[in-house]
């Protein structure tokens, strides 16, 4: 596999066994987001997917929908999420950050201004779940110019599209484990593994699998078969339960609880 020059601007320390957690910026508060991000880094996260809350998140299941609602109610926006990145850095986050956002907020921001803002704020990656290859030309160019990785996705339905998508993938290739929106899956479908194989054949970047990964068993399976795994809804749920713990104890206890649970989830 020929590697690209700027894999997350050199911040990606390995290309296998990548742990890529997803959190919603501002859920339930911007300050908390920084805390959780640091704990995830401590727990071995290799990339942070920082989700921007959206009113109509049509690729997301109920857990992330609710988190987005909480974050919106707390006043989060695309602009604020991007501007949170320097604060994350200041607090000690070193791993690459991928901004996850639906397309409409980007469009309102304006492509040029948005990409400039990503650059200024030191964002290494961008993932837009409702912007397929066919609609991404302009942003693809613009991100390339600024060494920002525009993450592509492949899905079980992609079939002949896999090759086309994989060949131009940057950063990592997001492999959607199965049909459906984000959210836990009890089991991974057996087809998932052969699907991953196929994707890997065509990809020049690490292949990370996401959608539904929610148990250590599944993590183990992905460690074996893919180059990385993305965990979203489950992490959001762990945040929810850490907030519960916080209620009956103090903040540190909540965060400790969060770290413990994350460690247990991703342990090798």
């Amino acid at each position, binding site marked *: 596999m020929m590697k690209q020059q700027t894999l997350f601007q050199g911040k990606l320390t390995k290309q296998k066994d990548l742990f890529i957690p997803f959190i919603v910026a501002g859920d339930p508060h911007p300050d908390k987001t920084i805390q959780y991000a640091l704990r995830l880094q401590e727990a071995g996260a290799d990339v942070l997917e920082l989700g921007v809350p*959206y*009113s*109509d*998140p*049509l*690729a*997301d*299941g*109920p857990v992330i*929908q609710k988190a987005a609602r909480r974050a*919106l109610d707390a006043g989060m*926006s*695309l*602009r604020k999420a991007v501007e949170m990145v320097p604060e994350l850095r200041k607090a000690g986050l070193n791993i690459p950050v991928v901004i996850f956002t*639906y*397309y*409409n*907020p*980007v*469009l*309102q*921001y304006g492509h040029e201004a948005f990409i400039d803002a990503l650059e200024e704020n030191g964002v290494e990656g961008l993932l837009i*779940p*409702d*912007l*397929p*290859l*066919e*609609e991404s030309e302009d942003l693809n160019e613009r991100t390339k110019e600024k060494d920002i990785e525009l993450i*592509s*996705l*492949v*899905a*079980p*339905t*992609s*079939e002949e*599209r896999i090759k086309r*998508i994989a060949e131009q993938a940057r950063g990592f290739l997001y492999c*959607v484990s199965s*049909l*459906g*929106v984000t959210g836990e899956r009890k089991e991974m479908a057996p087809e998932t593994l052969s699907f991953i194989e196929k994707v890997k054949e065509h990809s020049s970047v690490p292949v990370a699998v996401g959608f539904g990964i929610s148990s250590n068993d599944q993590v183990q399976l992905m460690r074996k078969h893919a180059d990385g795994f993305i965990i979203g809804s489950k992490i959001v749920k762990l945040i929810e339960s850490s907030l519960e713990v916080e209620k009956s104890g103090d903040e540190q206890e909540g965060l400790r609880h969060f770290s413990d649970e994350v460690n247990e989830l991703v342990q090798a």
Partner: protein
Amino acid sequence: MLTSMPNHKGRYGDFGGKYVPETLMAPLEELESALDEAMQDEDFLKQYNEELKEYAGRPTPLTYADKLTKELGGAEIYLKREDLLHTGAHKLNNAIGQALLAKRMGKDKIIAETGAGQHGVASATVAAKLGLSCKVFMGEEDIRRQELNVFRMKLLGAEVISVSSGNGTLKDATNEAIRYWVANCEDHFYLIGSVVGPHPYPRMVRNFQRIIGDETKEQMTRDIDRIYACVGGGSNAIGMFYPFLEDEVELVGIEAAGKGVDTPEHAATLTKGTPGVIHGSLTYLMQDENGQIVEPYSISAGLDYPGIGPEHANLFKTKRVRYESITDDEALDAVKRMSRAEGIIPAIESAHAIAQAIKEAKEMSKDQAIVINVSGRGDKDMATLMEHFTEEGLQ
């Protein structure tokens, strides 16, 4: 040429496209090629036309509104009577077309979104007729408000799925239908109710609604000066306008101004919205400065949608169609006026088009003629109308 849109990327000028999760790209491609095949298939077209004729009640009449014309003293007014279509609105034209296509594609499970329930009823109807299973996604708030249509769908054998996300209205029901489709696209067909959504939906729905305009063209025995249609997602309007796009006739689309376009409570997407992406398509929509979609408002559930079909966005931008807006109160007055002048109780949606036409017809000359698309009948709106019209209001 406007009639040759969309291009191969599903673009109408700047608008349209496919802004969907990768999972849906292949199903959309499959749909597009199945549609293209079907539209070339004599048998398919024959079956579609037969269902329209022998089941749905097409052609619908073109009624000369002689009393209204006389009252206003201006242009001759003709009414295209989609209110007479089976289930009470133009929605069935499209539902029949898509359901036949689903069947042809070997998919015997359909899903649909609905707001007030008109498209849900149309979908449940064709599902019953063609032997398909049918799940209708409907916001929990709408379920509460539209008890009757919920019952009607259930009676027709459909499953109504309550959507509690967001505000529990049409926008959220559509999100949820798309989510369900993403999870079940292999054997489910998503039957969208208007000229919205990702390519090829806007084109497909236009295909199945253009019968309205085609018939009108055939039925009119004289020149038409203007045509009026209300615009929610825009399907009845495109259905009516499309065959006239290259003719010398003025086309007027009417949006819902709700309590006024200068209040926050309206659904006047083109008048007040800005370009953005909603439900897979780049078009105009109602949003805040951060690109969050804003809940619209209109007394008529069928116009209460924050987006609009991308083809309308282009027709607006290119000025081929003039878009106006009509308030709740103006629409309600038009319901009453049409009821009394012509014995036709229109849907409140359609009454928006009627209200605008009434304003303009009286300023036109007697040798001019206009057509109003009466997209549906008012039966479904009786509860709303009863709330609004007091005893004196009916004197």
